[in-house]
């Protein structure tokens, strides 16, 4: 870089600003709602990264003598039935939810996209088989599928993550498949063929990059859903195991204190809602920025 003349440097920068991703970022920036969403998401990401330093307490510092205390100066969000600081647990819990959200979605994107591309590109019986598999998975009530998967693998955070990833595979698969089908018909693909390009190159250098925008949007929204699904599994006792401060599990554990100590129940719920809201807002903004024509 240093070898470039300053003028060239400016020019390069200016040109780069005009790329489609830059354009998207520019229009994303314009949406206040999307920025609020991104703000919330970044806030929780920071919480997750710096949890050990931010949180006043660790995950499992039990102190039976201060069980179920209402929010106070000392414990902003109160304490739970082990006398642990709820705020601290929520902060640590951000790690879990984001982790599950991100990685389950990455898992479904990888598997789903691969299947979707194969189906969309090769068509015929390959498509028929893969599409039928997607149909089967979609017709399966998703929470039951998750329960079944977790039952097979045993309850743990990791398995909940796998279950959620599996549930979402057909969504991404279908999305990519239909995208591939429509991009296949685009004129720039015809023109790529017309210059004598090989299929493989068309697939990876033209079709794939152009299908990414909706995947990113769908991915962001799927993170939101995944967080809720993870919480639901946690709530059913099929997710993270104690003393992991998974938000859904915290909620489940707090159920019996709904009347006596509602704060144990309200705050983890709010944490889930806020995070999910953040991802949803951001996904919406991304959709408008990246792919205005795509519908939810």
């Amino acid at each position, binding site marked *: 870089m240093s070898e470039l003349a300053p003028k060239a440097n400016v020019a390069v920068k200016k040109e780069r600003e005009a790329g489609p991703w830059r354009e998207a970022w520019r229009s994303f920036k314009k949406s206040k709602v999307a920025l609020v969403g991104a703000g919330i998401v970044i806030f929780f990401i920071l919480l997750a990264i710096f949890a050990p330093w931010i949180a006043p307490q660790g995950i499992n510092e039990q102190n039976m003598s201060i069980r179920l205390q209402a929010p106070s100066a000392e414990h902003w969000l109160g304490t739970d039935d082990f006398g642990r600081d709820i705020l601290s647990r929520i902060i640590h819990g951000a790690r879990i939810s984001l982790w599950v959200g991100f990685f389950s979605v990455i898992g479904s994107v990888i598997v789903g996209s691969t299947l979707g591309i194969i189906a969309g590109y090769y068509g015929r019986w390959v498509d028929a088989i893969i599409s039928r598999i997607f149909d089967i998975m979609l017709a399966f009530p998703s929470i039951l599928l998750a329960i079944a998967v977790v039952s*097979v693998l045993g309850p743990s955070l990791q398995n909940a993550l796998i279950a959620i990833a599996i549930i979402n595979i057909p969504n991404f698969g279908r999305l990519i498949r239909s995208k591939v089908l429509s991009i296949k018909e685009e004129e720039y693909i015809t023109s790529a063929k017309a210059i004598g390009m090989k299929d493989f190159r068309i697939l990876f250098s033209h079709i794939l990059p152009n299908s990414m925008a909706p995947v990113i949007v769908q991915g962001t929204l799927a993170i939101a859903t995944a967080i809720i699904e993870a919480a639901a599994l946690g*709530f059913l006792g099929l997710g993270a195991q104690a003393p992991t401060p998974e938000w859904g599990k915290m*909620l489940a554990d707090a159920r019996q204190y709904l009347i006596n100590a509602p704060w144990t129940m309200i705050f983890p719920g709010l944490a889930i809602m806020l995070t999910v809201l953040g991802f949803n807002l951001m996904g919406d903004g991304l959709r408008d920025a990246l792919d205005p024509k795509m519908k939810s």
Partner: protein
Amino acid sequence: MLHYIGRRLLQLIPVLLGMTFVVFMIIRAIPGDPAQVILGQQATKEAIESLRAKLGLDNPWYVQYFDYLKGLFTGDLGESLRTKVPVQDEIWQYLSATLELSLFAIIIAVIIGVNAGIISAWFQNSWFDYTAMILALVGVSMPIFWLGLMLQWVFGIQLDILPTTGREEVRDPVQAVTGLYVIDIFMTGRLDQLGTVLKHLVLPGIALATIPMAIIARMTRSSMLEVMRSDYVRTARAKGQKMFWVVYKHALKNAIIPVLTVIGLQMGLLLGGAILTETIFGWPGIGRYIYEAINFRDYPVIQSGILVVAFIFVMINLLIDLLYSLIDPRIKYD
């Protein structure tokens, strides 16, 4: 048209068969033994072995699978390992409970969601639009079980104005005819029960309706916005038509098609996905039925339950597809 339905139904067969196979394999992969569950914690090993033999669980899986399929083709959904009740005898009772709740929820969701979406699109960027869309986002962001508990806490316990569990006042039960109580009370002439039946529907209904309502509202809005920009809407206005009719006649009919898809999908999700709501509100529905069957490793119930839910899901979507052709004369299925 009939051809089309025929083809769709034909296509259904491999999907449903694949489904039974997947379910069959999954539930047998789940550790835990029905015999153990049936006999409980106290059971001896021998007792369990002999029960397994009696239930035919010691046959190779393919024998069991083909037996099950054979049953299916003769309309036999199998019988519960635990209660010995044939699945087809009791499934309707659960299904109808879920159907009633889901229908109630989807009706609320459609009425409110569609109208909110329309008004938001009509008055784009107004305060109503912003409020409705933020609420819709909050709606899809709320864990349903949390919402359910909060509703119980507020309306059931703090305000004490609505019942929190079940479908009916058990002291004065509804005589089930169709299983849809709102209809049954008309058939049995017990209109006085209407109030309690509806009251029982309210909280679980709201909990269940929130997410579809939000999704429908958002979908309607974006679909309406697109349609409102179309040439024929401009034509309608150029004729001098009132905005209200432009929106509700010309635009809505066109905008509703993608919304219908969403409604169909959501209805399907409600059917199978109401487990949490059903658990929290003590609703004796199919979700809980299957969930409990999973806990009890009641294989035939799980298999047939999921099969029935999937079947209804697929049928709803077929119905929605047929609805399209009613709405849109361009869509001809043949």
